[in-house]
């Protein structure tokens, strides 16, 4: 049995397992100790000193990393504690660019909220020299503005510890310390995978996505342009949060309605593209299994993962599925199939993707994803950017009626909607591959072994006579663990799903930002995932190959999965990239 440690926090007696921190124990005593730099399991460096408490010793202690001790008497709310926190906050604020009115994090800024909660009115007490930096706008996905950085290092933890990328870190020392890439290089010069986990880790506005809304507004107001939009599966599981709806609320119908009201000419669905991906990728997998192709095959939907593979594990490039990601597939179909049917010159079509992802911004610019100098997807905005556009347009999102997507590329199955969560692509692929390989109906479509938020999941699935060994992992850090095990010969699989962000797209770098005060104590991706599994359950059609619009597009346009035409339009190639550019 675990050893229980008795202690007192603000006069409340609690008993907690040994190894618990004072911060965690305080939650049990119903005391919220303020934190700023602390991000559970990601950044536990105790550098902001806002969580200081009085434990009876000479100095105040940082509760976030202080393990409980027997009969400890903790006071979190003495005049000395309150004053120390205020001074630490004022010192942090003194070197923070306080342009709050124009900051995208205003009202969702942890520094702003702490100032309000702790009674800090201004940053004037320690007014003096401020560091000045040129914001780094070189990346297609991420903007870094060190003028707002408070050196909490949460982004560093997300980049180095979670993703095992580590392209930013603290440099220099003392007042000149900054979070930067080494050797004064810009983010675009680094082997950054654009995942945006640094953005969702940032408590302030020092890290944001590269804005795509201006281009979208411009296209919407251009009468010569036919603007087509497609939202990704995971967007519908989180967009509601931006409008005060509870986490895990599915807002598919309202989202479609809002997109129509923003003025998009066609509201298609990336879920359609996900079903199409399954047709192509499932067929590719069967072909590799039957014809001695390179195994394990690894999914290619996540552009963060793809770039990670190109930089850090190029030896696995032959293992990557040649399928484009779902929104790129949809984009390619909009500019060919739809353009033909609607009689519109594809040059006048603007495809806008709404993604839970910042890496999609970089992906859309890949020259190989398009043809005749025309990109498959013209603009990518994140879930957050869509929310900003809806707010700017004065659309009463919460009270919108539910509407449907437009037909031709608006129909989707339950298999596609779970693409937004780790394990979803695997489950969707298994549903279709099973029926294609065995020719029998799959009775239970729920592959629960590949569900859940564990970083690495494994299963053996019986498909006819074949035992298919599969693995599912999320976060590039976990992918690296799995690939290393494969390289050492410890693991053998037929098919692997990798998602670049922990928990999959529901927790993508473009999703609504959840403050640490919530995130530290809540399994955010698990709650958002429930919305997607709920949608899957509610659908009559839950296998991609049953989607009537998918059947139609193969009959009318593509022929068969992996046909020559499908290869030309729906598949792509990858390139090895250096780590040091």
């Amino acid at each position, binding site marked *: 049995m675990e050893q229980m440690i008795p202690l007192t926090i603000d006069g409340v007696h609690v008993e907690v397992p040994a190894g618990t921190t004072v911060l965690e124990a305080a939650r049990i005593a119903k005391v919220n100790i303020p934190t700023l730099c602390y991000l559970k399991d990601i950044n536990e460096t105790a550098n902001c000193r806002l969580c200081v408490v009085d434990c009876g010793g000479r100095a105040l202690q940082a509760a976030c990393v202080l393990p409980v001790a027997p009969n400890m008497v903790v006071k979190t709310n003495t005049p000395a504690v309150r004053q120390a926190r205020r001074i630490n906050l004022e010192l942090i604020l003194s070197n923070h660019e306080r342009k709050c009115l124009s900051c995208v994090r205003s009202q969702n800024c942890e520094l702003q909220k702490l100032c309000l909660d702790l009674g800090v009115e201004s940053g004037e007490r320690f007014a003096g020299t401020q560091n000045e930096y040129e914001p780094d706008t070189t990346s297609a996905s991420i903007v870094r503005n060190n003028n707002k950085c408070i050196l909490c290092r949460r982004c560093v933890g997300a980049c*180095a510890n979670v993703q095992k*990328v*580590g*392209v*930013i*870190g*603290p*440099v*220099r*020392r003392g007042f000149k310390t900054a979070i930067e*890439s*080494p*050797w004064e290089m810009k983010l675009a010069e680094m082997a950054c995978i654009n995942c945006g986990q640094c953005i969702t880790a940032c408590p302030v506005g020092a890290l944001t996505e590269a804005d795509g809304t201006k281009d979208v507004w411009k296209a919407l107001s251009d009468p010569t342009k036919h603007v087509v939009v497609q939202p990704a599966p995971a967007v519908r599981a989180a967009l509601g949060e931006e409008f005060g709806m509870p986490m895990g609320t599915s807002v598919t119908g309202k989202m479609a309605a809002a997109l129509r009201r923003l003025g998009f000419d066609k509201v298609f669905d990336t879920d359609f593209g996900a079903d199409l991906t399954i047709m192509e990728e499932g067929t590719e997998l069967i072909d590799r299994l039957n014809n001695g192709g390179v195994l394990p095959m690894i999914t290619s939907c996540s552009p963060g993962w793809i770039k990670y593979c190109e930089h850090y594990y190029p030896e696995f490039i032959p293992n990557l599925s040649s399928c484009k990601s779902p929104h790129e597939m949809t984009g390619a179909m909009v500019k060919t199939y739809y353009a033909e049917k609607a009689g519109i010159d594809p040059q006048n079509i603007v495809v806008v993707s709404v993604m839970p992802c910042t890496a999609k911004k970089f992906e859309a610019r890949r020259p190989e994803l398009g043809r005749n100098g025309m990109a498959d997807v013209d603009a990518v905005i994140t879930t957050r950017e869509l929310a900003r556009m809806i707010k700017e347009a004065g659309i009463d999102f919460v009270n919108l009626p539910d509407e449907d997507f437009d037909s031709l590329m608006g129909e989707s199955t339950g298999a596609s909607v779970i693409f937004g969560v780790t394990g979803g692509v695997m489950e969707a692929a298994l549903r279709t591959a099973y029926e294609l390989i065995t020719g029998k109906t799959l009775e239970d479509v729920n592959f629960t072994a590949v569900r859940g938020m564990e970083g690495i999941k494994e299963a053996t699935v019986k498909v006819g006579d074949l035992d298919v060994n599969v693995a599912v992992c999320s976060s590039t850090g976990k992918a690296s663990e799995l690939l290393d095990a494969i390289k050492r010969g410890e693991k053998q699989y037929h098919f692997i799903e990798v998602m670049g962000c922990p928990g999959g797209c529901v927790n993508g770098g473009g999703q609504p930002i959840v403050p640490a005060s919530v995130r530290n104590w809540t399994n955010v991706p698990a709650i958002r995932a429930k919305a997607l599994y709920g949608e899957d359950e509610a659908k009559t059609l839950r296998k991609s190959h049953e989607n009537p619009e998918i059947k139609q597009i193969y009959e009318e346009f593509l022929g068969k999965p992996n046909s020559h035409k499908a290869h030309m339009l729906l598949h792509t190639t990858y390139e090895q990239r250096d780590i*040091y550019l």
Partner: protein
Amino acid sequence: MSNHNEKYEALAQVIRDHREQKGALMPVLQAAQNIFGCVPLDVQEIIADGLGVTLSEVYGVATFYSQFSLQPKGEYVCGVCLGTACYVKGSQKVLDKLCSELGVEVGQTTKDGRFTVQATRCLGACGLAPVMMINDEVFGRLTPEDIPDILAKYRAS
């Protein structure tokens, strides 16, 4: 150790010696600084690859500690003590004078590669405060006015 390849081989050996050790970055960087006289980009990349850490980490440590330099140091390294005793005796003014005479900032090396200016921690000669060292030679009880004559001696040599 003048030969170019010998230096890189020495670095590779140091990395091999420390590879399995926790906290290997510091001793390897120190060795690299001794071997090359500085830790430039290509050396940092070799260290990062060799120890399985990121370049960010290597560069972060190399810029945190003043004993590491990114560019080669000059023929004469001038370290002005900014420890407490020297500082209250006016060593900042001595350091400022040194910088203005040489036309560089703290941490930099003159274009001709002869002088590097550094601010150091306590040199242990507080009785002589304010103190400056040029390579192994100590100068005590300095005033900013002493600087031009001292430099002239080294410039002439």
